[in-house]
């Protein structure tokens, strides 16, 4: 064994890479099962018909989504197929308007706007935007805000008007409600349970 011989290290490089790729392949197969819709960590799309919460789980030692009783979005219970259609449109809104080049979802994206992982659960909808928009439900306030964000700024870094149609805004709200039900291993931590200023 001559460690100054490049072929020694070439063998090491090839074998290490192959082993790691095989391990990654197995982990990917398992992970895709867990994160597929209806898998262990990702709920079915029709979870938007139910109440969604987020609470600390002592056995997991992390905050986890809590799925409660019926709470239809916009007051209408949707079928699995209807929910899937809403999600498809919602995702296309998020991509076509490049939302994640200002915001993050699951902490991924850009950092100019707030993280949207748990935005459905954000107390600001009840405390700020429902009174501001004059809407009586969280989802109606969200739709009004998404369609005319420049009319309802809360601070200097306001959201621009990206000209969402009402259908697009409703689909985006549905998407954000579904996203909040994904089990993200406790990210973000302590959501909405602490003070806001240093």
């Amino acid at each position, binding site marked *: 064994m001559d460690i100054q011989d490049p072929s020694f290290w070439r063998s090491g490089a090839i074998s290490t890479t192959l082993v790691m790729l095989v391990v990654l392949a197995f982990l990917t197969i398992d992970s895709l099962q867990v994160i597929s819709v209806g898998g262990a960590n990702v709920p079915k799309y029709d979870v938007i018909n139910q109440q969604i919460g987020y609470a600390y789980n002592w056995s997991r030692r992390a905050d986890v989504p809590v799925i409660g009783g019926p709470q239809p979005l916009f007051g209408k219970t949707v079928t699995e197929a209807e929910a899937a259609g809403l999600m498809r449109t919602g995702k296309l809104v998020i991509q*076509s*308007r490049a939302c994640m080049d200002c915001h993050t979802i*699951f902490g991924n994206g850009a950092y100019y706007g*707030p993280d949207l992982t748990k935005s459905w659960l954000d107390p600001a909808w009840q405390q700020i935007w429902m009174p501001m928009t004059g809407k009586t439900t969280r989802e109606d306030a969200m739709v009004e805000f998404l369609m005319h964000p420049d009319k309802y700024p809360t601070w*200097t870094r306001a959201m621009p008007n990206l000209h969402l149609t009402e259908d697009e805004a409703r689909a985006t709200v549905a998407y954000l409600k579904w996203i909040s039900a994904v089990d993200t291993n406790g990210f973000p931590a302590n959501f909405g349970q602490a003070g*806001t200023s*240093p």
Partner: protein
Amino acid sequence: MYRSQKLSLRYYAAAITLFGVMILFGLLSALYYLFPSMLFNVFNFNMSKIMHIDTLVIWLLMGFLGAVYWYLPKELGREVVGMWLAELMFWVFCAAVAVVAVVFLFVQYGGANEFSMWFINQGRKYVEAPRWASIGIVIVMLVFAYNVIATCIKAQRMTGILWVLVLDLIPLLVVYLDAFPVVTNMSVDLYWWWWLVHMWVESTWEVLIGCVMALVLMDVMGTSRRIVEAWLYIEVMLVLGAGILGLGHHYFWIGTPQYWLSIGGFFSALEPLPLLGMVVHSIYDAGMHRMKTANQPAFFWITAEAFGNFIGAGVWGFMMTLPQINLFSHGTQWTVSHGHFAFYGAYVCGVIAVLYVAKQHVSGAATLTGRAWKWSFGLLNFGMIGMVMALLLAGMAQAFYGRAIGGSTLMAFTAASENLWFTSGMWARMLFGVVFAAGYVVLVYDLLTSPKRVPVLQAQPEPA
């Protein structure tokens, strides 16, 4: 000069131009944090950010292509096969980049439909280019792969470096296929998106720049092929050995199973190792040559690449990727600090080094010296380190006040963003960004200026 080296110079010219565009939109993006109402509803932050990060990817890719087109004929002792196709692809690449830039500047976004994905904006960070342009990139890379492989076959010769390069082209192309689908399920979308982003940036690009640096080291420092190839294999072994499962540090919070917290944390901790190896190697080389070389700028930028890669990608990455820290640091300006430092250290310094290699050959100067390159070296490094520190300050304020104390709500995000540490960090980032831009201006000036002729001192016989 080979025809492919002339093509290489075109790629370098395009790369350095896009480097400037990237800096311009970086400065603009930084300004939004200071003056949020600027260009509101006209040209919003997200479009400026897209221009900044997409030009980053494109100019570095062009720099890599230029470097390979430069060294391939030298490595094999013959012209690159299929040059007319390669030259055509250069213009296709440039035209596609220009059209996409015009669309981003003036159309910006479309409705929630497939037309927007095909022709306007795909809206996935780093993969915003519409599908037609992504197909263009695939074609350019396929032609590039054909050029490399066909030339090796025609020359009936393979070196260790070229084997690594050719094999690296496979994952480079395969993971880019993720640039096309719209996956409704965000968890699955991000799972594959990270294959593209991580496997490009933290694996295949690391190997690619490793190949380029190996060629530069032999060229500039005269390092023996045996040493360079052994180090390249070690680097590949460690980069891929740690980096493939290091992918796990992106799988902490996207809905993936809990075991990724342990796997990602463990392998992320190993990721600085290969980069430390490069530092050791560069110090060894510098000592061997007593800091003397015919191409001082290239030598200094290679050394900066080794240190920058280790500190920016390795140390800065490790600092924030253990899950216990990442729970709070993820998605803050802390990430931006790491991103800037890593891209700069790992790739920007390396590409600038090959630009100076080309300059020396084109000018025919026996040695490259002067003052301008030192100013640009100093300003670019000082500017980058300043930006990185400023962003770290701002990011830590976000992690502690917005996340850990504030609880990650909109109001917590707002409060952290108005925190003095955050705002002062943003101002400091702007200031150092201007310093960095000044360094770029001097760099372009120096690259375009003919080097001074340094008289070669003749040894005088000692008087009897």
